[in-house]
């Protein structure tokens, strides 16, 4: 609109610098120690186990990308290109894991495939063996869990890409005599490369930051996130900081690498026509439906197991193949015992507060950048995106470092041990979700709409409230619902920053598991999944599925 003053957007930039960059900077300087030395960095470089953990993080992530693509891409083609009865419902169910907090997926997996899980018990009951038939631990287990939970990214991105694909390209290939396979490999997949690169990037980053799976299934196999938490919980704060910086460097390197490949393979579509129609399957339709249903069942079996176990009262299921008693006692305990209700209330208020604040900041950044043409736009957009590129563990360590002492003149406040630190950490992690949604929505907004309102005499506040906000609502709703879900189910940040007073559901799930209260843990898990699903589907987040702007950050 009118001429931008140089200071417009500056206070917000400074606030975000303080919130996002300052803790990282402090982490770096404090990792140097006093007096500043490179001792800890040198130690990290010398120690073989540190290198091994970093290498484990990287190769596990690369392998996760491969596995997830191998599962997700064919599924996307199946549900987007073929028409068969039940396609819509089954196709939506396949995407379900995207709304489940990572920890819930991991716990569900544990209950189904773990050594004392449903399947192992069945095998034990059938063979009469006293020993569990397998142990679910190490890199294989982590990859299995990762593949199970992250195929969704490839599935959603590829489906979205296929839906946007111009049918004219496929028709042209067919017109030139190419058959289905050649059309798919030579035309469709190359055209999908932006979507596939996006999915690979998200999967890689999520896997690199993954904590729940290696923490629960890793055993002696250490990746960087579990090492950081171990160092931190062992009291070796400086080492945890140095490790965080190493992981951050790996994440940024991966991001740069993928973005470079993504940019070089960007495919510009010249034609813009209609999306390709689905191929109807004649008589084999029911067969495909049945196969798809089995597939979906298989993919959702862990979550079904979680639901089942949530109804098993404590101490009633020992050696039987199936639980002998099913009751609501776990749920009753959750809602009747104040100490068990507490984590639910904590998660809800902290997620709500963090999301509201992240929405306010993200919206303000997008608004001042685009509608008010701030000169700080590039800064604001980068600052908003940084928490997405860095693993949650890194931010947790950084925030713990920054807010461990009271020095208001230096922008530091003692928040460790207070109920404020965890919501603040959720807020920082939520910024990319609300902020990127707001930026994307604002970019699509025709600036003449606001000008039209101004010409009609509407004050800046009225323009914002009556025109900008209502038009941005769908985009914002998507970002907000994902941000809320992410905060609600967070585990990776919480485990480093929680106090007994602020313990969230995820921490309570973990301690219930430690106390052998599997039914309670499962009931918490089901509650978390139900809340997440409800928020996601009721709040219109589903409309934005598969959009890079609205992808949940790694957990």
């Amino acid at each position: 609109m009118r001429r931008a003053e140089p200071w417009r957007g500056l206070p917000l930039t400074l606030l975000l610098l303080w919130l996002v960059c300052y803790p990282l900077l402090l982490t770096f300087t404090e990792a140097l120690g006093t007096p500043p030395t490179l001792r800890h960095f040198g130690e990290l470089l010398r120690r073989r186990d540190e290198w091994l953990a970093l290498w484990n993080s990287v190769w596990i992530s690369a392998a996760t990308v491969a596995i997830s693509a191998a599962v997700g891409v064919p599924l996307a083609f199946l549900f987007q290109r073929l028409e068969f009865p039940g396609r819509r419902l089954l196709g939506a169910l396949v995407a379900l894991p995207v709304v489940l907090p990572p920890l819930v997926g991991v716990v569900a997996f544990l209950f189904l495939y773990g050594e004392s899980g449903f399947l192992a018990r069945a095998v034990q009951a059938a063979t009469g063996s006293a020993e569990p038939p397998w142990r679910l631990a190490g890199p294989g287990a982590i990859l299995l869990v990762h593949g199970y939970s992250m195929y969704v990214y490839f599935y959603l991105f590829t489906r979205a890409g296929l839906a946007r694909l111009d049918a004219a390209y496929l028709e042209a290939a067919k017109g030139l005599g190419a058959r289905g396979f050649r059309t798919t490999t030579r035309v469709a997949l190359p055209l999908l490369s932006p979507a596939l690169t996006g999915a690979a990037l998200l999967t890689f980053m999520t896997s690199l930051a993954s904590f729940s799976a290696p923490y629960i299934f890793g055993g002696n196999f250490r990746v960087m996130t579990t090492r950081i938490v171990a160092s931190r919980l062992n009291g070796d704060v400086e080492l945890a900081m140095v490790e965080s910086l190493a992981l951050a460097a790996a994440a940024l390197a991966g991001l740069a690498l993928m973005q470079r490949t993504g940019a070089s393979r960007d495919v510009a579509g010249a034609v813009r026509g209609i999306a390709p129609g689905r191929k109807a399957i004649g008589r084999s339709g029911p067969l495909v439906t049945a196969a798809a249903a089995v597939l979906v069942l298989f993919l959702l079996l862990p979550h079904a197991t979680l639901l089942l176990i949530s109804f098993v009262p404590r101490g009633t299921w020992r050696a039987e193949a199936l639980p002998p008693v099913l009751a609501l006692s776990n749920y009753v305990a959750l809602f009747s015992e104040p100490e068990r209700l507490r984590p639910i209330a904590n998660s809800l208020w902290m997620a709500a507060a963090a999301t509201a604040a992240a929405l306010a900041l993200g919206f303000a950044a997008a608004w001042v950048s685009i509608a008010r043409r701030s000169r700080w736009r590039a800064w604001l957009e980068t600052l908003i995106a940084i928490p997405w590129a860095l693993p949650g563990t890194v931010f947790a360590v950084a925030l713990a470092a920054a807010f461990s002492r009271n020095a208001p003149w230096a922008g530091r406040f003692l928040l460790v041990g207070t109920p404020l630190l965890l919501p603040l950490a959720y807020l920082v992690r939520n910024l990319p979700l609300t902020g990127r949604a707001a930026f994307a929505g604002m970019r699509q907004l025709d600036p003449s709409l606001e000008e039209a309102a101004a010409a009609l005499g509407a004050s800046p506040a009225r323009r914002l409230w009556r025109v900008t906000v209502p038009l941005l609502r769908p985009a914002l709703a998507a970002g907000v619902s994902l941000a809320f879900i992410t905060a609600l189910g967070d585990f990776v940040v919480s485990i480093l920053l929680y106090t007994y007073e602020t313990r969230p559901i995820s921490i309570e799930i973990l301690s219930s598991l430690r106390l052998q209260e599997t039914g309670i843990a499962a009931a918490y898990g089901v509650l978390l999944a139900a809340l997440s699903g409800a928020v996601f589907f009721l709040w219109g987040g589903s409309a934005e599925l598969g959009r890079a702007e609205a992808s949940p950050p790694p957990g």
Partner: protein
Amino acid sequence: MSAPGGGGFLVLQDLGKSFGGAPVLRKFSLSVSEAEIVALLGPSGSGKTTALRLVAGFETPDEGRVFVAGEDLTPLPPERRRVGMVFQHYALFPHMTAGENVGFGLHPRTVPAPERRQRVAEALAAVDLAGFEDRKVTALSGGQQQRVALARAMAPRPKVLLLDEPLSNLDPSLREKTRRELRGAIQRAGITTLFVTHEQEEAFDLGDRVAVLHRGELEQVAAPEELYEAPRTLFVATFVGRASVLPGIWSPGDGGGGRVRLEEGPEWPAIAPDPLRAGSRVEAAFRPESFAVAVAPRDEFLPARVAARRYAGSTAYLTLALPSGREVEAVAPPGGMRTGDAVFVGLFPEGPAPRAYPAGPP
């Protein structure tokens, strides 16, 4: 600061604006009388939309001022200028109905609900859309959206109405009809109007006067007839209507008249809008009607060949290739000449006189 003289209702005074160091508007001044409709005509990049946005307040001028009814609007934000605007793509709020769009400028604080409803109904009726209050704007046709946008801009009874390429979004078949309706609605409201277009026909049909802009500068502002018959600059001569340009040497006569010795050979009478030195190099602009075409040689006629012929019903436009390689366009009766024919071209005494302008640097 008081309004400058001239008695204009809307006065643009020495407006200047640069973007990123590149000037898009230079010393632009224009005075529009009350209830007058003025078109800003120019090619893309001529600064016409910038001028409109400076009046609306969406851009701040680097220099110059905007006055409406003697009041200096320059320091005011858009919402306090009482200037109605119709956007090129209408900018109708997609989340509101047609009625809510039209009522948006009638603030609930200043206009009570019953009056608001009535004024919305009146505004819609004025554009022939009575009863369209509850329609979704996205469900309206292009022409209807255009009229809702007009109703919305007029409903708050602005002092000045601005239109940015108001018809460019419509089908050519719909344009003429919508143009008539637009003109009718504006004239009934008696509102001072400034509108931007790059189409001459639109400017001539809607505008009481037309201001021609070129590279950020005002070339001429005049009634359509004057603009066509007496263009002040070579740019106006060639941009407004069709014109062929031939170089020559000027010899002055009485008043603004004189003669041009064409490089092609003959010497023809011409009019110079600005005084020219004897012997100076000029460019002479000829309307197609300025020429006469003959099949036999005549005095002061040039030999030519018909390079192309465009049939236009009652007449035909001939592109004539001169021996120098230059081409001119002439109008002739539709019968007779064919492409490839050898002809002779000279000045048609009853046609518009050619106009001579100082030649740019060679």
